[in-house]
C-alpha cells in the first residue's frame, strides 16, 4: 500500500506528566527533520511540578508540526493525536487545539480499569469527544506494551514513537538509531529494550492503523547547509558561546532558566562561567562589574527579574557599559503566567527606567535568531557602549525547530582583552559629537584610570555640577541610537510594496503572521507584512512603507483595549505595545489586534482577524 501524500500534518502526544511524551515527540521531530521535513515542536507543560494524574490541568505533552515547507510556528488545529488517557484531552480541547475530524489514538486501558469510576469517566469522555467531531480510535496501547515490558509507564513513549514512525512512513532504521542517540550513555539493555518497544509500536500501527499511512515529502526549499535542531533557549546559550562572552550571571526564573542550565553544562568547555547570583539585582550588577572590567557579560531573565534589574540597567545606560540582557518574556504583569508566552515587555524595555535611558533593543523572530541576535548584541553593546536587550519569549524558548547551523568565526568573538597603554589625552568618554560614540579604557590599561559613575558626569567621568553637561551627555547617549539607525536598512516587505493592509509584527509571531498573510494573499487580498527585529532604534523607512497601504495594523501577544469595548474611545484606547511606538514615530493611524491568552497565536486566528479588518476596510472605502 502506498502512503497518502500530505503537505503537512500536526501531531500531538498528550499524557500525564512524567510519561515521556516530550521525549517521544522530540525524537519524532528530529527524525522528521533529518528526513528533510520542516518541523516545529512545542511542549505542552502543566503549571505544576507533579500535577495529579488523569486531570485536564495535568496535561503534559508535545505538539509536532511537520511539513514539506519550512515550518515557522505551531500551526492551527491538530490532525492526529496520541493520548495516554482521555482526561488530558479536555484541556487541549478547551484550548481549541483540535477540529472536526482530528484523529485521536487513545489508549483504551481505562475502559477496563479496576475503578468503575474511571471506566465511566472514560466512556463519557469518548462519547463527548465523538460528539465534538473527533475521530476516536480506542487502542490497546498499554496492553501491547505489556508484551514487551513490565511497566509500560516507562516505555510507552517509545512504543508510540514506533507507531508514529510507521504512520508517517519514517525510515525505521533512522528511528532505531535515534533511540540509540537519545539514550546514549545509558546501559545497552535500556537501548535495546526501547528499540524493541519502538519495533512493537511500528508493527502495531502497521497492523491496526493501516488506513493511516502518510508521506510528507521532503522540503523543496531545503538548503544544503548543515542544520541543527534546538529550542530557543538552547539557541541563546549557543549564541552566548559563539559570541565569545565568558560570563552569564543569572538568577533562576521560568521560562528563562533553561538557557542557563544548558550553559552550565557546556560553557566551561569554552572557558565560560555561569554565575548563579543571590537575586536578579546581584546578577546584573555582577555582569556590569565584569563588563566594566573588559569582559562584556550577559544576564538572562524574564519579567519579574527584568523589573528588579531596572535600576542597574539605568546605571549601565548612564555609564555606558556594554552588556547583553536576554529577556525571555512570559505572561505578566507581576508573577502573571510564568510558563506562558507574552510579548508584554517591549515598553518596559524601552521606558522602564526613571529618566531618559536609551538603549538598543532587539527581538528574535525565530529560533535561529535567538542564537544570532546574542552574537549581534555583544557586538552592538561594545561598539555602541551600551546595554542591549534581546527579547525572546516562552514560545521561542520551548519551541524546537531545525535551523541553519551557524558557521563560527573569530570575528563573532569578543576581541582579546586590551591592556595596552591608554592615550591619556583621550578622556574616558571621548564622545564623537556627530555619533555619540566613544572608546573606553579597560581596568589594567595604564593611564586609562577613571571612575565610572551613575551620576551625571563630564567627558572625564568626573561628577558634573554644571547644568550644560547633563544636557550634553544625555544628547550623546541618545544620539547613539540615531547613529545605529543610520546604518540599518528598511525592513523587508513580505508581499507587495503597496496594497490595502500592512501587518506589522515583532518577535515570535513571525511565522504565524507570514503564514496568515500568505493564506490571505492566495484568496486575493492585497495584504503584506513586515516584521521588525530592531525595536530601539526602529528600522528606518517605516513612514514611507506605511504610506503605501490603506491600513496598518500590528498583531501582537500583549494587552490592548478593544476599540468596541465599553468605555473605550479612540482617545483613551490603550494600544498594543509596538503599535504605540509606531504611532509616536510615524503618526500613521496604526491599529492593533492583540491578546493575552497565554498561548502562541495561530495562523488561522490571525487570518480571521485580518480578514475581518479587510472586510471592514473594503466596506468603508466602498470597494
Amino acid at each position: 500500500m502506498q502512503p497518502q501524500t500530505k503537505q503537512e500534518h500536526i501531531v500531538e502526544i498528550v499524557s500525564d506528566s512524567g510519561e515521556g511524551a516530550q521525549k517521544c515527540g522530540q525524537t519524532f521531530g528530529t527524525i522528521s527533520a533529518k528526513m528533510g521535513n520542516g518541523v516545529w515542536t512545542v511542549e505542552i507543560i502543566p503549571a505544576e511540578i507533579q500535577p495529579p494524574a488523569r486531570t485536564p490541568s495535568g496535561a503534559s505533552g508535545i505538539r509536532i508540526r511537520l511539513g514539506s515547507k519550512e515550518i515557522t510556528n505551531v500551526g492551527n488545529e491538530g490532525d492526529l493525536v496520541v493520548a495516554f488517557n482521555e482526561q488530558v484531552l479536555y484541556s487541549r480541547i478547551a484550548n481549541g487545539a483540535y477540529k472536526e475530524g482530528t484523529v485521536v489514538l487513545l489508549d483504551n486501558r481505562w475502559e477496563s480499569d479496576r475503578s468503575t469510576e474511571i471506566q465511566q469517566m472514560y466512556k463519557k469522555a469518548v462519547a463527548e469527544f465523538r460528539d465534538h467531531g473527533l475521530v476516536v480510535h480506542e487502542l490497546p496501547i498499554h496492553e501491547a506494551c505489556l508484551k514487551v515490558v513490565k511497566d509500560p509507564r516507562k516505555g510507552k513513549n517509545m512504543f508510540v514513537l514506533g507507531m508514529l514512525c510507521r504512520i508517517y512512513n519514517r525510515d525505521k532504521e533512522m528511528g532505531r538509531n535515534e533511540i540509540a542517540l537519545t539514550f546514549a550513555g545509558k546501559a545497552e539493555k535500556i537501548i535495546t529494550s526501547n528499540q524493541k518497544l519502538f519495533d512493537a509500536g511500528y508493527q502495531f500501527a502497521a497492523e491496526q492503523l493501516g488506513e493511516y499511512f502518510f508521506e510528507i515529502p521532503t522540503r523543496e526549499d531545503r538548503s544544503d547547509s548543515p542544520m541543527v535542531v534546538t529550542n530557543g533557549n538552547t539557541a541563546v546559550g549557543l549564541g552566548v558561546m559563539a559570541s565569545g562572552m565568558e560570563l552569564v550571571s543569572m538568577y533562576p526564573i521560568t521560562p528563562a532558566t533553561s538557557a542557563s542550565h544548558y550553559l552550565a553544562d557546556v560553557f566551561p568547555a569554552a572557558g565560560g562561567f555561569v554565575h548563579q547570583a543571590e537575586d536578579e539585582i546581584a546578577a546584573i550588577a555582577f555582569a556590569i562589574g565584569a563588563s566594566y572590567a573588559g569582559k562584556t557579560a550577559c544576564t538572562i531573565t524574564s519579567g519579574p527579574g527584568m523589573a528588579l534589574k531596572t535600576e542597574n540597567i539605568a546605571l549601565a545606560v548612564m555609564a555606558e557599559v556594554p552588556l547583553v540582557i536576554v529577556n525571555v518574556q512570559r505572561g505578566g504583569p507581576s508573577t502573571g503566567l510564568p510558563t506562558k508566552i507574552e510579548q508584554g515587555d517591549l515598553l518596559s524595555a524601552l521606558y522602564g527606567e526613571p529618566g531618559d535611558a536609551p538603549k538598543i533593543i532587539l527581538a528574535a523572530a525565530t529560533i535561529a535568531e535567538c542564537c544570532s541576535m546574542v552574537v549581534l548584541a555583544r557586538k552592538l553593546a561594545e561598539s555602541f557602549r551600551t546595554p542591549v536587550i534581546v527579547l525572546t519569549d516562552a514560545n521561542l524558548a520551548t519551541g524546537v525547530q531545525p535551523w541553519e547551523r551557524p558557521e563560527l568565526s573569530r570575528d563573532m568573538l569578543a576581541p582579546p582583552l586590551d591592556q595596552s597603554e591608554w592615550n591619556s589625552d583621550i578622556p574616558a568618554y571621548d564622545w564623537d559629537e556627530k555619533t555619540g560614540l566613544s572608546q573606553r579604557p579597560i581596568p589594567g590599561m595604564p593611564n586609562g584610570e577613571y571612575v565610572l559613575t551613575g551620576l551625571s558626569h563630564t567627558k572625564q567621568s568626573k561628577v558634573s555640577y554644571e547644568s550644560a553637561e547633563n544636557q550634553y551627555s544625555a544628547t550623546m547617549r541618545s544620539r547613539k541610537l540615531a547613529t545605529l539607525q543610520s546604518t540599518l536598512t528598511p525592513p523587508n516587505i513580505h508581499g507587495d510594496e503597496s496594497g490595502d493592509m500592512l501587518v506589522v509584527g515583532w518577535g515570535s509571531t513571525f511565522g504565524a503572521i507570514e503564514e496568515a498573510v500568505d493564506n490571505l494573499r492566495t484568496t486575493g487580498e492585497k495584504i503584506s507584512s513586515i516584521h521588525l527585529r530592531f525595536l530601539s532604534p526602529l528600522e528606518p523607512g517605516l513612514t514611507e512603507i506605511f504610506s503605501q497601504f490603506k491600513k496598518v495594523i500590528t498583531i501582537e501577544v500583549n494587552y490592548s483595549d478593544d476599540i468596541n469595548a465599553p468605555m473605550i474611545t479612540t482617545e483613551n484606547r490603550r494600544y498594543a505595545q509596538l503599535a504605540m511606538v509606531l504611532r509616536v514615530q510615524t503618526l500613521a493611524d496604526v491599529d492593533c489586534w492583540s491578546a493575552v491568552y497565554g498561548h502562541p497565536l495561530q495562523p488561522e486566528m490571525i487570518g480571521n482577524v485580518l480578514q475581518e479588518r479587510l472586510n471592514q476596510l473594503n466596506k468603508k472605502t466602498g470597494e
Partner: protein
Amino acid sequence: MFGIKADWSLDIQERYFTLDDYEGNEARWCSGCGDHAVLATAHRILRDAQLPPEKSVFVSGIGCSSRMPHYMATYGLHGIHGRALPLACGVKSRRPDLDVWVATGDGDCYSIGAGHWIHAVRYNMDMTVLIFDNQIYGLTKKQTSPTSPIELKTNTHPEGASLDAMNPNTVTLGITNASFVAQVVDWNPPLLHETLKAAHAHKGASFVRIIQRCPVFVDSITKELQEDASRLRLLTHENGIPVAKGVEKLFPDSVEHDPSDMAGALRIARDETEKGIIPVGLLYQNQNIPCYSDLSGQGVETTDEEKIAATNAALDVFAI
C-alpha cells in the same frame, strides 16, 4: 594578594610609584570626617605595595564614603546604592589579576545591601571590603542606619531610633565561609594602617568594619569613644593585627585573642551588644576557605580556537 600577569613584571621593575600616583580628585568630605583617614591609609598601602595604579579597582555604592573611588587615581566604579559588593564581585570574576577594593557605608552595606553582604561573605572572592560605619546616613543628611544607637535622634526618628543597633560582626561571623573579619576605628592611624594592610594581604573577602567619625551629624558617638578608650577592647595575638607598643598603651582594655578561634570571636563580638565593649582588631581569620574568584576565573586564558572548537562541539550534539 593577586596575580600579576607575566608580561607585566618587566614594566613594573622600571616604574616606581609615589603617593601622588594613587591620589585622585581632592577629597570633598567634611573636615574632621573619618573618611579622610581611611583614604590616606589606602593610598599608603598601595604605595607600599607598589601596585601599578591601573591594576587596582575601587568599587563603591552610594553615600559619603562611597565617594572614595573618585579620590583614588586607580580605576573606580562608583555604582548604585547597596550594590557595591555584587559589582565588585563581577569585576573580580573574570579579572583575577585586578586588585579589588570595596568602599561601602553602614546604610549601603547593612541596610539596602544586606542580602549582598551575606552572599559576598559566602562567595569569599579575593577583595578588601571597607565598611565605613559612621552609624548614620551621611549623604542623605542624618537618617537612622542599622547601626545607629537606639534612641539616637535622627531626621527619620526625631524621638530617637527605635531599634537596638545591629551588631554587624555577629552577623558576618555567623555566615558560613567568613574568612577575615576585623574591626578598627578611623582615628588611630597606625592601627588603621596595619588592619587594612592585613585585610589587603588576606586572600579572600576581608571584611573590615571601620568605626568612622561623622562630626557633622553624630559627633558625640565617636567623640565619646575617642575620649574614653576604655569602651574599646584591643585584640592582640601573634596572628592578629600587629600592634606597636606605643599603640597598645593607648588601650586600657586589651585581650589576647587567637583569630582562628571562632567561638572566642563570637563571644568578643557579642560583648559589643551585650556590654558595650567594642573590639578593635582581628576577630577571625581562616585562610583555608576556598575563593569563588578562583572558580569564576577559570578559563580566562581560553583561546579563540578553543572557544570555537567548544562551540562547534556543542552544536554537533544538535546537528541533523
